[in-house]
């Protein structure tokens, strides 16, 4: 609880967290509170230094060739467009700093062709807070061209 006491009076900008009860002050664990404080201090020190630099680079498996990537504000989640095998494409939602892996895949959706122009933000839709994701994909206009093998034959399918 030492870190939460420090956090309560902390004056520097904190890294953004998902806007849910899970990440509200009472629900934060000591480890999460410590990480928030340490990161805010490190970012401030780095920002004010004469030569700001990146201290750490994360390398993680995205389970396919990454075509493009988008970090959801706050860095807790990452959305990636991946290419699997010869002609399979998918969107993957990865949770960063998961207790099992640096980047743990929490959701995946196959797409009929390559998703690009990824955008992702925390947004409320209907009554639920969540991550809104947009992407563009393209395919042959004529059904005969699609059937001729210009794009992936699999229909979109949700799976985890």
């Amino acid at each position, binding site marked *: 609880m030492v870190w939460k006491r420090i956090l309560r009076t902390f004056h520097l900008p904190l890294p953004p967290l998902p806007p849910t009860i899970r990440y509200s002050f009472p629900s934060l664990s000591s480890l999460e509170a410590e990480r928030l404080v340490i990161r805010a201090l490190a970012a401030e020190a780095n920002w004010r230094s004469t030569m700001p630099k990146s201290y750490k680079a994360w390398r993680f498996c995205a389970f396919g060739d990454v075509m493009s990537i988008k970090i959801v504000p706050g860095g807790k989640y990452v959305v990636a467009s991946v290419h699997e095998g010869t002609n399979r494409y998918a969107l993957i939602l990865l949770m960063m700093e998961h207790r099992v892996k640096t980047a743990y895949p*929490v959701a995946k959706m196959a797409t009929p062709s390559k998703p690009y122009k990824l*955008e992702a933000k925390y*947004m409320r839709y209907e009554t639920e807070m969540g991550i*809104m*994701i947009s992407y563009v994909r393209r*395919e042959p206009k004529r059904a005969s061209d699609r059937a001729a093998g210009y794009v992936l034959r699999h229909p979109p399918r949700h799976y985890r």
Partner: protein
Amino acid sequence: MDVSDYSEDHVIDFPVPVRYELNVLHCPLSAIHVAEDPRFPPGSSAYTARIDFQLPPFRNVTVIRSNTAFDFTDLDMVDGAPYVVAVQERLILFKNLVSRNVHRIRVGALFGYEEEASENHPEVRFNLPRLLYHSVTPVHCHREY
């Protein structure tokens, strides 16, 4: 040949006509939290049972189909409502993700470049006398999908 193999950063002369789809998905945090609940470690039978019980985490919100490429897209809240914004050449689309209303704005040429713009974009209408720097012509607002 797969149209997905081509770059999305360049204007491509595709060998076959191509159509474009702007998709918007919503992934509720409640669905994600099921997968990250520390009480159920990944790989355990309890974890698998909870995941299998859930609805798919990605839920379709809207799809905008077009024969013109999308140059720029964004998501944002306007007056408390979620919107997707898309730019196609001189046309800007705003789609309310709740009411499904689509607003279109066709942007004219910069002041002083009307002639050049008319040659390059003969299909675009310009309203020069009314605006100093550029003309913004709301075309119409209607319900789509």
